[in-house]
């Protein structure tokens, strides 16, 4: 039962939010913040158990011969922790951001349901359960993308659905096919398909179907088209869902697929890992180059997200322990860095209606704390030590060299340079004197400011503590090691 709670608590909060209706705003905030606090405590307890070697799991029967299962292992808990903790931070931000918005009950209700679904994806014990929560995540995100109800938002929503449901269809066929040939296949470090590993042709097709399904949310090119458009959603949605929960559900699916469904060995011997790696490498380069040319702030961040997600996919597809651990750590690290940036984008828009990089001159003086947090996150993203992005990029780079894929190392290094290329102009633009200069030091609403500072500080703290037990780096290495036969770094 305990393994279900990180999914159930936000779900109940979401339903309660709908039930409270549009008028009881204070009660709604209390319910959501309390649910976030409870969820964080529940996840923390599960993490302690998992670190001590007890994986709590539970399965209920659903379809003939197949159950719906949840299992609180370290790998899943890393994603659940990221989603839940950042949900709490984003709630505070969203309460400030949505202060004057309409339909807030609907917004916060679906927001909580999205987190429930993301935690379901994180802790799902087998492909079918993961697929179910993955699809719930697609559906519960739609009302948030079209929240404003403008023609532009509805068009973005249509595009989002087109991709998400198409990917879901591929995933359904892949998961059902797998169930037909292998029955229930709980995720197992190192692979769960040993019994049917001789059906190579079918397994290759299924792998492609599953990658097509997860690739949509992971924004793997050419399946990324929905993400830049979805930036039309309110900033908290872009921050938490389109930088953390939704897109990470995609890469998390790929991590489970490679490490714990097929296993690195089978994925390599079937020859399916290398094409995935190449696809991811191409995505990194193309998306980074496109990001250089975006003037729209959120779109630039969106293309950067596409590139960074493919970092994770590439690291996973290399099937080498250090790169795989680096990929998992980067899932957490990128979440912290990117949420800082999207928070910034939201608050400069909400406070000053700045949407474009070219409109930024004066911002650094006007909103120093906000822009300082952004700067820290931007340098972290480019992999400057000792900030948080450095540790995972180091692991990814060394891991690719170890696995003999020097080309991947080159991709990582050059994309780090590209990241500087698309981040630094934002900073220089903000540092210039300009329109926003006069009213210096007037930051945004404190409910938006402090969450930004919090995650900004987190990018420094997590970077400095990367070597300690319990840090995402250590956690990722512990969670990945069993997939590589008890590898120790």
């Amino acid at each position, binding site marked *: 039962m305990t393994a279900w709670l990180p999914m159930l608590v936000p779900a109940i909060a979401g339903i309660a939010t709908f039930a409270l209706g549009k008028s009881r705003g204070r009660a709604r905030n209390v319910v959501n913040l309390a649910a976030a606090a409870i969820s964080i405590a529940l996840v923390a307890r599960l993490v302690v158990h998992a670190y001590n070697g007890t994986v709590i799991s539970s399965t209920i029967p659903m379809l003939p011969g197949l159950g719906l299962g949840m299992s609180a292992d370290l790998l899943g808990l890393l994603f659940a922790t990221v989603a839940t903790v950042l949900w709490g931070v984003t709630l505070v931000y969203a309460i400030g951001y949505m202060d004057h918005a309409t339909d807030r009950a609907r917004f916060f209700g679906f927001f909580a349901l999205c987190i429930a679904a993301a935690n379901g994806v994180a802790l799902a014990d087998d492909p079918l359960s993961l*697929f179910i929560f993955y699809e719930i995540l697609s559906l519960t995100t739609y009302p948030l993308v079209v929240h404003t*109800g403008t023609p532009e938002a509805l068009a973005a929503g249509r595009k989002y659905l087109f991709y998400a*449901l198409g990917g879901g269809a591929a995933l359904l066929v892949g998961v059902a096919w797998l169930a037909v040939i292998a029955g229930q296949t709980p995720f197992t470090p190192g692979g769960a398909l040993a019994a049917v590993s001789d059906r190579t042709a079918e397994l290759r097709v299924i792998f492609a179907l599953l990658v097509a399904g997860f690739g949509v949310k992971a924004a793997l090119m050419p399946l990324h088209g929905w993400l830049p458009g979805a930036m039309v959603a309110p900033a908290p949605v872009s921050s938490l869902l389109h930088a953390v929960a939704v897109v990470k559900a995609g890469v998390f699916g790929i991590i489970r697929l490679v490490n714990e469904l097929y296993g690195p060995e089978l994925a390599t011997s079937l020859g399916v890992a290398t094409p995935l790696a190449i696809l991811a490498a191409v995505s990194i380069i193309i998306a980074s180059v496109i990001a250089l040319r975006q003037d729209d702030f959120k779109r630039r961040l969106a293309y950067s997200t596409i590139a960074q997600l493919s970092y994770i996919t590439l690291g996973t597809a290399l099937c080498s322990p250090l790169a795989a651990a680096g990929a998992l750590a980067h899932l957490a690290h990128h979440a912290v860095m990117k949420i800082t940036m999207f928070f910034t984008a939201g608050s400069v828009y909400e406070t000053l209606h700045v949407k474009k990089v070219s409109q930024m001159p004066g911002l650094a003086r006007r909103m120093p704390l906000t822009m300082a947090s952004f700067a820290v996150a931007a340098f972290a993203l480019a992999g400057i030590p000792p900030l948080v992005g450095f540790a995972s990029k180091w692991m990814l780079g060394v891991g690719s060299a170890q696995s003999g894929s020097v080309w991947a190392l080159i991709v990582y290094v050059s994309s780090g340079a590209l990241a500087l290329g698309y981040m630094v102009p934002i900073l220089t633009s903000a540092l210039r004197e300009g329109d926003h200069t006069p009213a210096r030091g007037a930051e945004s609403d404190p409910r938006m400011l402090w969450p930004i500072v919090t995650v900004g500080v987190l990018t420094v703290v997590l970077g400095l503590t990367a070597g300690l037990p319990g840090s995402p780096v250590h956690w990722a290495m512990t969670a990945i090691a069993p997939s590589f036969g008890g590898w120790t770094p």
Partner: protein
Amino acid sequence: MNVLAQSPGLLVAVPLAGAAISFVAGRRRAPHVAITTALVVLTLAVALAVHVLDGGPFRYQVGGWGAPLGIDLVADGAAALFLVLTAIVGLVVTLYATAYFRTDDETAYGHGLFWTLWLFMWTSLNALFLTGDVFNVYVCLELVGISAVTLVTIGGGAEALRAGARYLFASMLGAMTYLLGVALLYAATGQLDMDVLRTTLVADTTAATGLALMIAALVLKTALVPAHFWLPAAHGSAPSPVSAVLSSLVVKGSYFVILRLMLDVMPAGYLPGVDIVLGVLGSAAIVWGSVQALLQTRIKQLVAYSTVAQIGYLFLVFPLARHGADVLTLALTGVLVHALSHGLAKGSLFLGAGSLMTRFGHDRIADMAGAARSAPALTFGVALAGVTMMGLPPSGGFGAKWLLVSAALASGEWWWAVVLVIGGLLAAAYMFRLLSVLLVDAPTELHASKGDIRTEWLPLALALGAVLLVLAIPLVSDLAAASNVLIHAGVTP
């Protein structure tokens, strides 16, 4: 548990008595009679399902006379599922109708008759699900057909009358063809009892012709493409509670008989190629119905064409049934789950469409912008019902799609899985086309009367049932295992 053993007879007798009492009770008291009847029938249906789960299928001799003289009722797991579905949707529709027909014009001719006709149709449907002999099927089909046609035209209006006339034509043509088929079958075998036919049927041109005619007639009654020409008009122009019953229950009645004839009565391959033809027509229905739904500009026409599409899924079981016991079990459970989830979701959609039409005062989808804000419960109901239509988790429709896709992949005939996936995507296209209008940010001039609590929340309740059905799939599987189809196929010992 005497009442459990008697429940098949009572499931016919109670609604019949309700129909008679509602006729003499007068317009004011008729709704109370109907609600009481619906509650009793639901209890009886659940009792029957429990009885079948415990002790397997059983025969019930009306009045103690056995075959061939008396009327035998047969209660198996599949029949129990359809009876329970009918009772749940029936109860909700009855409650909804108490609000719907009151807000309508009180003096409209015929509304007083609604209760009697509706309970009478319920009686005939229950009898159809329970009957064990092919001639009584004819009688029940006629009774269902006549009450259905009358209910379509009950609201009056030229459009409803035209639709009713077309429906009457289809219904009569179907009934006559079916009767001709029964006559041929009887001439060849001298038998009408399905159980006896199952054990005695031998290769014979006359008998085969008879059965083929019967199936063709039932296909017409089920509105399988290309015999769907009467459905959109009839279901689209009837009063909404009637549309709900027609779309979610009545088409399942004739389908249930096809299921029994194809998979239980006839030995495999008795009518060579028919199973494939039904599967191909089913696939055509999924695509054609969905595309038509996508093109509709009026809400109830959209929902009606969606029924044309969703009926198609039910016919995919026939080609899959040729591939051994495991695939048959998956596919049969799949179509039963589909029949249940579609029944609940489609009931919800028609009731919801009715409420939206009452509030907006028209049925044009394009002018329903802003409903999400002024009628959130209705919009949420449409959304949840839509999730089931698309076959997305978590919903009964997902369970059905999963089971059918698994059956298709396990059979090696993967192309049926492709049809299922395309059908789901097309359903998403037409449902989101509707939903995106409801979600548009627009000031709305809704009908002055705030919706009644029944017309606002009952559609949502049914849709929620369709979603939660995903948790009841183990139960449906058990009932499927207790169906005569699987027992006679040797799957269930």
